[in-house]
Every structure is written in structure tokens, then in C-alpha cells.
């Protein structure tokens, strides 16, 4: 993991001072709410329906056990004993008091954490593949470049008041687990024919009311020149992105209006001018940051690990959990465990203080003290010896997080929705809870196979419904909560946008509609191994429309 040096520490400390002053000036009336709003947003502080919400950054989703323990303490001390892990790999607290924020930030800084740029029209927390460093298919650990971007974008003097928010995602593997083409800039680490590492840069993707899969703008930016290239990308956007209409202000609209070819040309022209002018970091600095992501000291373990094999043979529940929740590790004898924060009937992504502490203990004992947050709102223990998996599973059962449902129908993403969010049309969380209860039977879930349901409470699409195999969008219909269904979205390397099926369903009917969609799929799949998304891509929306709307 990256460890702060004295400079990072200084920045963190000075940031707490700055925000403390800003809160004081707000409370004294020197800053109006309009003036304070961008400042507090840049510190992840939202005014929600009932209280302030604070979003704490978990850069590229990597967390130490010590940090998780601090997050648990904060949930206990400043919130109501809960934290909520988000699709941006961050954590949110929903019941925060403004005057306690400075103190809270100071506590976070003691474990090298902050809430910088987790909201507002600036460069947001960079997200990355949750299996960074442990996945076997990786060209390079995406956290190295993510940390480089984190530092470069922190309080960037030119790009802190962009037309709109700006999100980066990085993947280091051909299998895209970070949904990079749904981001303002998606970076894919690649190797060219000469074997050199560089970056394929996609620009102008996004969710929201105009979902766009980002076009490729540069197939190979040399490793040493990424920051100057990104600076050129951002400068063109900062100058020409629309500022007259909030719904047209994201970079995806600029790239669409200019056309990817013209956008690329403008970026290229600017890049040629600024290349080699000291924006890029020198190789020594890259090497310094890289050194923090060296693989830990793994043991040499011969596979198969007999105790592990036996435990699976003896215990069907454990075997099933291994099947869905343990990802192969590049080092023999290890596995990466995804802890499901989606217990049946629970709130997706929520963890209590006690649960966080228990997971921090597990990380310390079994995963070299490291954790990850996934953009599907789960946690990962990346480095577990196979021989320890059974013990980990047992402990997770005790805390209610051993659901063997990763990637299955109850592994749902849901935005906060009308329970918390002032922009919402409809509730998201209760719908996800009811779907989860309807499909609680694990045999049935495994029978259905891989299926991602994603729920947003309004068109802003924080629940990524466009990228859901089944997307659910809350709409307001004459003051009633209604839900539209989209099918066929995907957020991986085969990214696609879900298509609207037809008129929405009432809150009472939506779960039944989902069940019908799934039954239709089960009836038409060619074989059990044909997944929902594969089947949908083969047959299209018609059979689903027929079963839902009677074919008229």
C-alpha cells in the first residue's frame, strides 16, 4: 500500500486546517451557503434530506485493516454506528453534524485518509480494479498510476472548478472490472508490440441521463507522459465544456458535440505543446510510488491444498461460497475473498461498526492487513491462504456477511434513493431488499447464474442502472414511485447500455416483473451455462416484452 511521506502528511494536515477555517467562516456568516457549497462538496459533504452526508475517499478502493478500524470508530462516534460503501469505492456516513466535521477529518488524517474531492466539479477519487495486484491476468498493477493521478489531481490549481464532476477509472487487466468506459476518462494499461507499457485512454463515457460508452481517444500514451496527456484532455474540457446547462456539462457531451476525432485533434495539439515541460513525473518518482505496490511476501504453497479441498467436499455451503466469492489469485495456494455486503434483505453496501471491526480483524489475521472496496459495494480480502478460507468463511457467517451471492441476482447495486437523497424520484433500497428476499433461495440463485441488477432512484444513475444486466430506474408518475426496467446493460470490457423495455411498474409490481424477466430467461436459455446477458444478446428484448406486456 502507498504510505504517506512528509509531503503527503503536510498536505493532509494543511487540508484539515483549511476546511476547519472554511467551516468557521461559514458559521460566522462570512461565507454564504452558495459560496460554501462548492467548498464543502470538494470535501465530500452533502446536505441531504435529514442531515449532512460525508463521503470519505478510499483511493482506488485500497484500504488497510487499521484504516477500516478507524472508519468503524468514526461510524460509532459521529454517525449511528453504520457506514455505507459506495459504487465509487468510497464510504459514506449519513448522519453527520457540520461542526464535528473538522474533528472527524483530523481523525481521518491520522490514518492517511481524507474526504478530498469526493464530490464537487473536480477530479474525483480514482477507481480501479478491486483485484489489482492479485489478479493473474494483469499487465500492471493499476494502483501505481491511480496513485500518480491521485497526487496530480489533488487541489489541482486549474482543474478544481470544472464544468462538472470528473471521474477516472483504471484497469490493468484485459478483463475490465472497473467499468472504465463508463467514466469521464477510462485508462486501460496495455503493452505495445515492443513490449512497452502504456495507456489506452478512453474519454467521454458516463451514466446519468445520457449514458455513453466512452470512445477510444488514444490507443497508446507512453507511460512517462500520461500526466501531460491528461492535462491536455482536461484543459480542452475546462475551456470548452458547457457551463450553461448542468445536464450538458459532462465531458461526454463535449466529445459527442465536437466528435471524438475533433476532440482528439485538439487534445493532441495541446499535448504536443506541453510535452516535456515538466508536467510529467520523472522515472525516479514513478519508481518510488511503484515500490509501495510490490507484491507482499507470499508463502510458497503447493496446490492442491488438501484441507481446503476436503472442506469443500465436506461442506456444500462452503463449497458454494468458494465458487462465487473466492477469486483465483496469481500466487498458488492463495485466493481473493469477496465479502458480500449484500445479506438477504439487507441494505447493499452497509456495514455496522462491529462488522467493520470484525472484517478488520480478518484482514489482519488472514489477508496481510489489506482490503479492497469494489464498485459493486462489496469488500475484498485480497490475500487469503486457501488453508484459511474455511475459517474466514465461518467468521463471516457469524457477522452475517457470508452470503454466497457474488455476481448473482441478489448481489444488487442500489443508490441511496428516496430514503436519503434529495434528488430522488423513488426509493431504491427497499426495492433491492424485496428483490433480495424474493430470490433468497441460494439454490435458485445459483441456478439462475451470473446476473447483475442495478437500481437508481432517479435519472442521475448513481446506481449504474444503465450498466445492469437488469437495470431499474425510479421515476415519478403523478406523485407515485414507479420503476422502469432496462435490459442488456453491461459494465465490463463488453460495455453496453441497457435498453428500456416499456412502461414502468408500481412499487408493488416491480419485483414480480423482475421475476417474470428471469423466468423468461430461464425458459429460453439454450443451456445452463448461457448467462442472462448472453441470452439477452442472442434473442433481444422481444420475448421479455411479450412476457411482461403481453406482446402488444
Amino acid at each position: 500500500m502507498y504510505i504517506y511521506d512528509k509531503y503527503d502528511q503536510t498536505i493532509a494536515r494543511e487540508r484539515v486546517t483549511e476546511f476547519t477555517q472554511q467551516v468557521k467562516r461559514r458559521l460566522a456568516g462570512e461565507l454564504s451557503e452558495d459560496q460554501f457549497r462548492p467548498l464543502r462538496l470538494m470535501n465530500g459533504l452533502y446536505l441531504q434530506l435529514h442531515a449532512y452526508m460525508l463521503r470519505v475517499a478510499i483511493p482506488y478502493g485500497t484500504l488497510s485493516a487499521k484504516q477500516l478500524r478507524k472508519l468503524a470508530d468514526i461510524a460509532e462516534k459521529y454517525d449511528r454506528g453504520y457506514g455505507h460503501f459506495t459504487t465509487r469505492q468510497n464510504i459514506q456516513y449519513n448522519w453527520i453534524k457540520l461542526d464535528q466535521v473538522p474533528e472527524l477529518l483530523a481523525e481521518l488524517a491520522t490514518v492517511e485518509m481524507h474526504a478530498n474531492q469526493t464530490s464537487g466539479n473536480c477530479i474525483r477519487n480514482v477507481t480501479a480494479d478491486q483485484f489489482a495486484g492479485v489478479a493473474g491476468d494483469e499487465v500492471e498493477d493499476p494502483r501505481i498510476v491511480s496513485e500518480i493521478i491521485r497526487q496530480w489531481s489533488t487541489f489541482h490549481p486549474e482543474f478544481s472548478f470544472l464544468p462538472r464532476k470528473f471521474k477516472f477509472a483504471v484497469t490493468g487487466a484485459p478483463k475490465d472490472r472497473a467499468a472504465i468506459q463508463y467514466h469521464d476518462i477510462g485508462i486501460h494499461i496495455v503493452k505495445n508490440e515492443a513490449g512497452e507499457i502504456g495507456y489506452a485512454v478512453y474519454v467521454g463515457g458516463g451514466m446519468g441521463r445520457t449514458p455513453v460508452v466512452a470512445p477510444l481517444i488514444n490507443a497508446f500514451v507512453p507511460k512517462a507522459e500520461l500526466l501531460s496527456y491528461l492535462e491536455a484532455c482536461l484543459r480542452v474540457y475546462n475551456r470548452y465544456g458547457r457551463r450553461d446547462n448542468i445536464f450538458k456539462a459532462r465531458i461526454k457531451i463535449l466529445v459527442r458535440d465536437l466528435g471524438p476525432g475533433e476532440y482528439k485533434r485538439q487534445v493532441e495539439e495541446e499535448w504536443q505543446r506541453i510535452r516535456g515541460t515538466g508536467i510529467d513525473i520523472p522515472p525516479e518518482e514513478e519508481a518510488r510510488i511503484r515500490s509501495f505496490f510490490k507484491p507482499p511476501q507470499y508463502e510458497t504453497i503447493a496446490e492442491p491444498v488438501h484441507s481446503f479441498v476436503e472442506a469443500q467436499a465436506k461442506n456444500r455451503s462452503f463449497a458454494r461460497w468458494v465458487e462465487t466469492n473466492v477469486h483465483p489469485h496469481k500466487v498458488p495456494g492463495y485466493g481473493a475473498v469477496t465479502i458480500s455486503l449484500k445479506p438477504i434483505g439487507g441494505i447493499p453496501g452497509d456495514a455496522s461498526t462491529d462488522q467493520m471491526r470484525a472484517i478488520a480483524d480478518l484482514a489482519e489475521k488472514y489477508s496481510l492487513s489489506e482490503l479492497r472496496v469494489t464498485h459493486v459495494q462489496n469488500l475484498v480480502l485480497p490475500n487469503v491462504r486457501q488453508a484459511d478460507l474455511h475459517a474466514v468463511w465461518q467468521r463471516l457467517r457469524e457477522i452475517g456477511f457470508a452470503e454466497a451471492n457474488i455476481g448473482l441476482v441478489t448481489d444488487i447495486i442500489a443508490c441511496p434513493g428516496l430514503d436519503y437523497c434529495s434528488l430522488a424520484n423513488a426509493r431504491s433500497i427497499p426495492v433491492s431488499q424485496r428483490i433480495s428476499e424474493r430470490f433468497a433461495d441460494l439454490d435458485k440463485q445459483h441456478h439462475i447464474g451470473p446476473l447483475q441488477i442495478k437500481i437508481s432512484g432517479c435519472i442521475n444513475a448513481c446506481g449504474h442502472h444503465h450498466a445492469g444486466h437488469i437495470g431499474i430506474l425510479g421515476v415519478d408518475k403523478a406523485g407515485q414511485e414507479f420503476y422502469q426496467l432496462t435490459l442488456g446493460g453491461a459494465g465490463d470490457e463488453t460495455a453496453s447500455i441497457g435498453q428500456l423495455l416499456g412502461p414502468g411498474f408500481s412499487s408493488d409490481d416491480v419485483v414480480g416483473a423482475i421475476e417474470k424477466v428471469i423466468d423468461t430467461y430461464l425458459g429460453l436459455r439454450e443451456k445452463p451455462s448461457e448467462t442472462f446477458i448472453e441470452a439477452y444478446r442472442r434473442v433481444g428484448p422481444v420475448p421479455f416484452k411479450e412476457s411482461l406486456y403481453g406482446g402488444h
Partner: protein
Amino acid sequence: MAVIDRNGPIANSWVHLADDAQPAKGQSVIVSFARLKNEHNSLFSASTAVGVEVVGDVVLEDLEPFLPRLGIIVVRMPNMRDGRIFSTGRLLREKYAYKGELRAIGDFIPDQARFLLRCGFDSFEVGDAFPVDSLKQAVATYSVWYQRATDRGATIIDQRTSGVS
């Protein structure tokens, strides 16, 4: 109205000239860009110093021919969320090598001064109620920064790689 820099109030001899007013003899005037384009010959031939006020959407290529003769460029921030001013500053300094004074005016708040300074601005024109002390405090809050910008002082990366502490 006051003009300040990072340390507080500074002397100012520039006056904003309305489009229908004529410069007095020896006056240093700031005119609109439209007027500069139309009347640059007569404006520059008078013995007065000339500056221009622009907003974020200014086409810098159009401004370029005048740059060597401008004593000041005032960039207006129409509202505090309009961040084009930062790119305008950097481009004027770094791409067009503008050497005169660069001043911000408009709806910025003290906390943005630090960024404006890093993007090539020298001074700020503010209303009488502007909290000057907060600006000084905001500018002084940070002792280090990560990224290169117009100000060429050592970045954190420079300090790390040169071993300076």
C-alpha cells in the same frame, strides 16, 4: 473597490474606461476587448498605458496580436464556479508568454486566490466588503503542492527527487 495581491492592498493606477468615455491624458486605462479590437490604433498611440478586460470565453488567438503592448489583462470570473479563468491564465502565461500584469475580477472567493496565483495571476480587484484577511490566510494555508503549474516554484515531486527537504 480595492486591488490586492497575496500580501494585501497594493497601489493601483489602472482605471476601467466605459466604452463611451475617452481616456484622460496620462491615464492608464482598461478597456473592453471589443473596444480594443476597434480602436487599438488610437488607444495605443495616445501616451496612456492600455489594458483589457476579458471573460473566460475569450478567444486567445484574437487577443494574441495585442499581447506585447498590453500592460494588464483583467479576467472576469462571472461566478465562482466558472473555472475557465484558470486555463485562461495558464495559457496566457505559458502558451502566449504574456508578461504584463494579470488580474482577476468578479465573483471569486478568497479560497480561490491560491489557485489563481498558481495559474499566473498577480492581483485581485475586489469590493470593499471582500475579506482580505481570509484571502491572505487561504493563500498561506498550503506550504506545498504536487503539480506543476504556471508558478515555477518547486513542487513536491521536485523536492522528493532532488532530496531537498
